[in-house]
């Protein structure tokens, strides 16, 4: 059974009603369990659970300490290009936005790689906009080969590919895939993606699974919180999707990133405001539901929120981030995909992690 079939099992679930009916006693009952059913997980996303964050945090912290200890793995994104053929209404790279477009040459990729490597980072995430004819699979593969000279781990966050294409990139040294479904609400998805190849909901939904089948060591998924009016829907389905991948591809390490909408070039207003409390609740619920998944909190979030979330189940953080193409070396950084809230350098990030009693981990993988 593929994930879309699992999703369809919940078609008739009235999520708002379910969430409203949860009582504190239900939450307590779930917190007393060792393994959770999907509906238990949903219980932890309820408004009733929002009033019990401390108890959830205690449990999530215990699980995280046992599985990951006091460590936070660091990585940084590298934007190779911002050409895009899509019109995601919430994104600054949207083809309808008049922004300067560019793509790094091999030399520029090397320079960016060198600049990032000089900060000590070892895990790199390379990104392109969604323009397959500009940022071809071969181009991405060539960049990965260059960057592999500097980084023991190179992951991609690019448009959805076929399994063969993922397998090809794996031979180029790519070991991880990040792909955001944005929203699991199919109708809403179509509205938010009016044009371009990304409009194909099913092709995107199954892409993380194709990445697992292609042999990537790590696959990170997520929804963009704020697109859905009931934020818990996407949080719930993201957790289910991660659980599905973990159950079916036990050899791949599955991670979740819970980004929230950020200001960008354009005028899209979020359908729901996901508060700091909501985000924390989501991360806690995830950790209690899926003990061993990685959880990434990006620089979309503020420095103080990120710092305070370290003990709650977060395992990976980005540092020294720029979301503009060539942003690590160019003087004029160009247009960013979205504004970041935590602009701290790698060094500053390390100090912050250490001050929380945690250890920044630079290297957690190497090819052999």
């Amino acid at each position, binding site marked *: 059974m593929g994930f879309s079939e699992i999703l369809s099992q919940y078609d008739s679930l009235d999520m708002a009603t379910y969430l409203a009916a949860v009582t504190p006693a239900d939450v307590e009952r779930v917190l007393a369990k060792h393994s959770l059913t999907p509906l238990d997980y949903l219980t932890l996303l309820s408004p009733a659970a929002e009033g019990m964050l401390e108890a959830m945090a205690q449990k999530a912290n215990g*699980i995280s*300490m*046992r*599985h*990951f*200890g*006091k*460590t936070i793995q660091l990585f940084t994104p590298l934007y190779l290009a911002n050409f895009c053929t899509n019109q995601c209404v919430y994104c600054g790279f949207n083809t309808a936005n008049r922004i300067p477009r560019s793509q790094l040459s091999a030399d520029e990729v090397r320079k960016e790689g060198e600049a990032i490597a000089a900060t*000590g980072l*070892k895990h790199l995430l390379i990104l392109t906009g969604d323009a397959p004819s500009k940022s071809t699979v071969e181009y991405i593969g060539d960049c990965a080969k260059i960057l592999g000279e500097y980084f023991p781990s190179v992951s991609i966050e690019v448009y959805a590919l076929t399994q063969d294409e993922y397998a090809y990139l794996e031979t180029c040294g790519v070991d991880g895939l990040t792909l955001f479904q944005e929203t699991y609400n199919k109708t809403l998805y179509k509205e938010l993606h009016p044009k371009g190849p990304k409009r194909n909901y099913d092709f995107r939904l199954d892409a993380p699974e194709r990445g697992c089948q292609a042999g990537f*060591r790590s696959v990170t998924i997520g929804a963009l919180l704020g697109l859905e009016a009931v934020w818990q829907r996407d949080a719930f389905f993201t957790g289910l999707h991660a659980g599905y991948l*973990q*159950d079916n591809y*036990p*050899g*791949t*390490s*599955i991670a979740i990133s819970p980004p929230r909408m950020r200001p960008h070039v354009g005028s899209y207003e979020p359908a729901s405001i996901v508060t700091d409390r909501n985000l924390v609740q989501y991360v806690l619920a995830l950790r209690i539901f899926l*003990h*061993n998944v990685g959880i990434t909190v990006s620089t979309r979030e503020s420095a103080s929120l990120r710092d305070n979330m370290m003990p709650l189940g977060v395992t990976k953080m980005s540092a020294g981030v720029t979301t503009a193409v060539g942003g690590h070396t160019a003087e004029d950084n160009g247009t960013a995909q979205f504004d970041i809230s935590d602009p701290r350098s790698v060094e500053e990030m390390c100090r912050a992690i*250490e001050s929380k*009693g*945690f*250890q*920044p*981990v*630079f*290297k*957690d*993988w*190497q090819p*052999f």
Partner: protein
Amino acid sequence: MEANNNDALVIGGVSLTSRLFTGTGKYGSDTIIPDVCEASGSQVITVALRRVDTNAATGNVMQHIPEHMQLLPNTSGARNADEAVRIARLARAAGCGDWIKIEVISDNKYLLPDGYETAKATEILAKEGFVVLPYVNADLYVARDLVNAGAAAVMPLGAPIGSNRGLMTKEMVRILIDEIALPIIVDAGIGAPSQACEAMEMGAAACLVNTAIAASGDPVAMGRAFGEAVRAGRAAYLAQTATVSTGTADASSPLTGFLGGM
């Protein structure tokens, strides 16, 4: 205090007076490692090769491991025998010595070790002269395979990694201690010194403890507690714990009491 000065644990020709093995993986800062080693008395420390950055001038876990410690690099991240073998060779090439802890895990949900792939890797690496310490389920058949494959010890789990549930596999570990001629080192799952002590009382040759020390409120104090617990358990084992019931005929023997003083 050593239970017995002659009671060294010899593995791969190395004589160890401490039977507590420690780890490097989950500390808030690697700078605490020397203090934990000293307080615990541990002489063997495992380190994940995937975390070792041989090129880094700073931020390298290896800088914090005291000179006298026996390094036990592990193959964490390996999903099959082939990957474990390659990581082991890399560890040796990186100057980490000949000891290798085989960890082959292809299940990211429960992190349980794959016995078949572990035995395959053990066989290859033992032939290449490695001192192989495989991490496995507490399974008699797997342990026998490991003996045949040339392992230097067998490291059964006490409970799944990260569970801190203690010696859940107690009866299976006891069978391994009874049946397997190699040192049995309980690895994973131990959450408290009392549990390590219990494993040692049963006759385990050593315990490897990482999370329970690293994730505790005071890793140095907890390291010391584990060092003492392991010594106490070993001393009790050597002293041959008195049995609870002698089993000899007495008036309360319901089935054989009628035999009287025969």
